[in-house]
């Protein structure tokens, strides 16, 4: 009798409180598609694990999954889901928030993932563990889209781990290559350390507010808090966790080693998508939970980000200028670009929040294409086995002109010349910095961009104006790698005139955070 009574209460009593209605599941389509594709790959691989002939099926499934997720995200963004009048969609009691910013970044992640997967088909030819590779890429992308939509520090931490754990393994993917293994080790060591610091920071923020939900924290803090010290240490540690994910100072030093040692498509994925994921979650946590209005009197974190932005872009660019390997140069330049984007956080609370944050979002979008393209060109060079230094690229323009045109577009766009979207996005950041009175940051941005032109143009000079070495020869033009590189170049170029399409979406999505 007791059992049946408890069964009755089990059936009738507890009900799901906050599971979203069926209609709201549509908003999660990109996440679900990415996750399901990863599981499908698992199934395909377990049917016939040792068969090398199912490689096209694996790569094709993965690419279809990311393209579908990309399409879904674009449709949702265009349909205005979670934007405008209705406000953000809150699922699971606010644990997930689907709004313009989440969808905007989902577009970035899925685009980068698509390019990387298409390029990996050639790069990974004849390697084992391909199913695991694509699956880990997809799971990491799932984690990133969840990071973009995370509405509580608990969800932030767990989805950050979902993005990180596959990345560690992907960096060490070339198991018999010492550089790759060492890169994976260093990435893992710093990642584990920073996630521990991040967790401790979260526990202190919980200690100061008694909440983990971003909105709830903001609500608690808006009335002022007695526990300024604990909150301050917690916020600093949380910022440290984001600094790791975005490869900013002081947790940037894993980036050169990890990007150099990792397989080049994985470097592209990490330096573009993973960095953007770190930034979106930093934007959301700092703009919503520790909203500048609420905590300006107690914990003025904009000053910390001001310092981080200045130091990060300077260190990144000066270190990049002294490199002799192209991949390592790109790694340091990736640190420098993190510094540019950090201006968006440093310039908050000066009355132009939507504008400056929107500028950072646009830069991350453009950066997603141009930086991915640049790393994929390096992947192409590794595929041809022509070497890693600037000199090894000498005269490549005579052998592979189309890819070299694409690479030139990436380089000039990264430097901020008007041949690609990088010019406009950097201009937006500059306008935001000047408009909020951060003239020092604006000046640093200009100086660093000028410096970056020096080392980016070294690559272009090698490609076109140096005489090729006698031994330079390339075998074949791999279709997948070429398609990815050219696709990235075309979009980078199209974003120069088309930037205003994206900038409206980004600015309104950023403004919605502060509404």
């Amino acid at each position, binding site marked *: 009798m007791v059992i049946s009574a408890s069964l009755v209460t089990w059936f009738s009593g507890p009900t799901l409180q906050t599971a979203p209605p069926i209609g709201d599941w549509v908003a999660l389509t990109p996440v679900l598609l990415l996750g399901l594709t990863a599981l499908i790959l698992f199934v395909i691989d377990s049917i016939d694990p040792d068969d090398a002939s199912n490689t096209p099926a694996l790569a094709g499934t993965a690419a279809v999954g990311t393209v579908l997720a990309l399409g879904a995200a674009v449709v949702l963004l265009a349909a205005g889901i979670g934007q405008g009048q209705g406000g953000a969609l809150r699922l699971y009691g606010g644990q997930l928030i689907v709004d313009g910013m989440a969808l905007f970044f989902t577009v970035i992640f899925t685009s980068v993932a698509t390019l990387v997967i298409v390029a990996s088909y050639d790069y990974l030819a004849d390697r084992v563990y391909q199913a695991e590779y694509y699956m880990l890429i997809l799971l990491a992308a799932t984690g990133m889209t969840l990071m973009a939509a995370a509405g509580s520090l608990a969800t932030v931490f767990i989805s950050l781990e979902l993005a990180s754990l596959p990345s560690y393994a992907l960096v060490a993917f070339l198991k018999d290559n010492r*550089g790759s293994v060492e890169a*994976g*080790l260093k990435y893992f060591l710093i990642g584990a350390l920073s996630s521990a610091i991040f967790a401790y920071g979260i526990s202190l923020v919980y200690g100061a507010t008694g909440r983990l939900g971003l909105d709830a924290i903001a609500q608690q803090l808006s009335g002022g808090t007695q526990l300024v010290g604990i909150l301050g240490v917690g916020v600093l540690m949380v910022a440290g966790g984001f600094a790791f994910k975005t490869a900013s100072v002081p947790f940037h030093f894993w980036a050169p080693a990890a990007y150099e040692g990792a397989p080049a498509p994985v470097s592209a994925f990490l330096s573009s998508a993973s960095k953007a994921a770190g930034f979106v979650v930093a934007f959301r946590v700092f703009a919503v939970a520790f909203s500048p209005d609420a905590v300006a009197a107690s914990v003025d974190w904009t000053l910390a980000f001001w310092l981080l932005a200045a130091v990060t872009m300077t260190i990144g660019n000066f270190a990049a200028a002294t490199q002799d390997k192209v991949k390592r140069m790109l790694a340091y330049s990736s640190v420098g670009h993190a510094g540019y984007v950090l201006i968006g956080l440093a310039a908050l609370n000066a009355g132009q929040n939507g504008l400056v944050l929107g500028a950072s979002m646009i830069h991350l979008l453009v950066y997603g294409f141009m930086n991915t393209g640049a790393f994929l060109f390096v992947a192409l060079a590794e595929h041809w086995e022509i070497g890693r230094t600037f000199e090894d690229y000498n005269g490549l323009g005579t052998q592979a002109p189309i890819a070299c045109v694409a690479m030139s577009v990436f380089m000039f766009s990264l430097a901020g010349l008007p041949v690609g979207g990088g010019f406009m996005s950097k201009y937006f950041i500059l306008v935001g910095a000047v408009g909020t009175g951060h003239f020092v940051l604006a000046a640093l941005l200009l100086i660093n961009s000028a410096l970056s032109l020096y080392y980016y143009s070294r690559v272009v000079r090698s490609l076109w104006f140096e005489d090729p070495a006698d031994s330079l020869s390339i075998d074949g033009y791999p279709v997948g790698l070429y398609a990815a590189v050219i696709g990235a170049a075309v979009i980078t170029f199209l974003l120069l005139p088309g930037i205003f399409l994206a900038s409206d979406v980004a600015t309104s999505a950023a403004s919605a955070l502060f509404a």
Partner: protein
Amino acid sequence: MVAVQYYLLLSGAIFCIGLFGILTRRNALFFLMSVELMLNAANINLVAFSFQYGNLTGQVFSLFITALAAAEVAVGIGIILVLYRNFGDVDVTKATTLRW
């Protein structure tokens, strides 16, 4: 009744011990253990504050951190295994093909 400050001091001490271990140990397995210490320091805080505020959010989240720590160790051991196969050692300073 133990004041919440004592739990905080305990967790702070454990966190710093973990940090000390990370800064001084060359053995990758010790590194993993030190990270576990730091994560568990966060767990102590979460549980203590959960009682302080009378809600269960912190306690439930500490369970999730425990699970994540296990997942992290699984991947970490995998990386240490390939490190050992390539470099013949689990010393993190032995891997010096790349510069930092």
